[in-house]
């Protein structure tokens, strides 16, 4: 969180409670990206993301207008909590009422599988990641990335498993990320 963001958030929350419509617009602008990430990570379907995002801000603004946030300095936690709850509720709804189909209820398919855009993204990213891996060369360095990004292992466990000192791990990660960022920028931002 940026310096002073808590105080800004507090001002925003108080302004909305006082009926300032411009502050509501600022709230959306400020938290939109974070809310979408939390919804996505909670398992919300990509197709429903816009509607769910609207629902998050509708709920937040209604409650802020009512002055329901007791500690306005905790605006970020308040927004994250609403986004998480709306995301999880959408997943529960999807499990309870799957789309009409063949009479066999197949539940809990990963959102990515129903998302052609996500699959395309995966393929494009695979090309970049393959380049990074090729340049990294060593099997051990590849294993570092696999363990961190795919398996989500904590750093200390990766170091222990691969016999790396923390500084060596930092070096591998820093090299891989720098190379990835350069390739990504070249490909997607010219």
């Amino acid at each position, binding site marked *: *969180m*940026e310096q002073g*963001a808590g105080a800004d*958030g507090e001002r925003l929350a108080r302004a909305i409670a006082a009926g300032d419509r411009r502050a509501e617009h600022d709230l959306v602008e*400020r*938290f939109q*990206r*974070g*809310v979408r*990430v*939390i919804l996505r*990570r909670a398992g919300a379907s990509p197709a429903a993301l816009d509607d769910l995002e609207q629902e998050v801000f509708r709920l937040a603004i209604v409650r802020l207008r009512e002055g329901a946030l007791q*500690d306005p300095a*905790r*605006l*970020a*936690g308040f*927004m*994250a*909590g609403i*986004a*998480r709850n709306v995301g999880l509720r959408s997943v529960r709804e999807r*499990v*309870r*009422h*799957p789309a*009409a189909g*063949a*009479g*066999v*209820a*197949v*539940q*809990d398919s990963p959102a*990515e599988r129903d998302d052609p855009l*996500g699959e395309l*993204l*995966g*393929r494009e*990213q*695979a*090309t*970049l*990641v*393959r380049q990074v*891996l090729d340049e990294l060369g060593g099997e051990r360095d590849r294993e570092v*990335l*696999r363990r*961190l*990004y*795919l*398996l*989500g*292992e*904590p*750093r200390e466990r990766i170091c222990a498993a691969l016999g790396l000192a923390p500084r060596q791990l930092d070096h591998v990660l820093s090299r891989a*990320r720098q190379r*990835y*960022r350069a390739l*990504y920028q070249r490909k997607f931002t010219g």
Partner: protein
Amino acid sequence: MARRMSMDHDQIEARALAERYVAETLPSAEREAFEEHLVDCPRCLDQVDEAERIRAGLAALEEERPVRLPARPDVARLPVRRLALALAAGLVIGAVPSLLVLRALQEARGQGASAHGAVAEAQARAAAVERSLREERQARTNAEAELAAAEQVQSLPVLALAETRGGDEGPGPSLRIPPGAPFAVLAVETGGYRLYAAQLIASDGSVIWREDRLSANAFGVAVALPARLLPPGGYRLVLEGVSGDARVAAGRFAFRVTAEPAR
């Protein structure tokens, strides 16, 4: 709610929070604390975006790997007879390369120890046959795994339901779901409609599953439900015949789910 400890970026990097958040391996308290920070932090949002992209790339590369066993075999598509035949064939085929290895070695010996070239050639042939043996063994292992999955399909718990007359009295028949069963099947004999709307209602009145266009065959309708939707308790399956926009009550079927004790 208690005020959470604020996070700084050194801490976030040292604990690899962005990467572990994306990989969904953070404990829930740490996840919530990170989200509270993340929702208002462009720097961490960038890091999460990057971790998502790298993860998607690594996952796509993993999927491209040519030889791997499926983590979750698509059990519905596995014909048992074909798999049994494949398994039997694997057993026979697996035996053949072993004989070839022996024969290749015998041939090499018969050509005399002085003939180094011939021995080397025979060793190469033996190595090739051994490779083939390893591949056949792998194929046999795969077939065994598929067969095991297919047997799991055969052992799916199935409950044939009879209509509950006059409302909700009586618990109805029991469905025992063995531990580890992925699905349970409800079968209902019906007549008169090609399409049905179905609702599965738990004993507390909540609708836990719904399907608005369920096709019937000549014998009735069958619904396969994930076993985890059916914890032990009482349920009602409510069917309505669908004719155009109209729906007509077609039956209520009460049943109970009981847990099978783990062996």
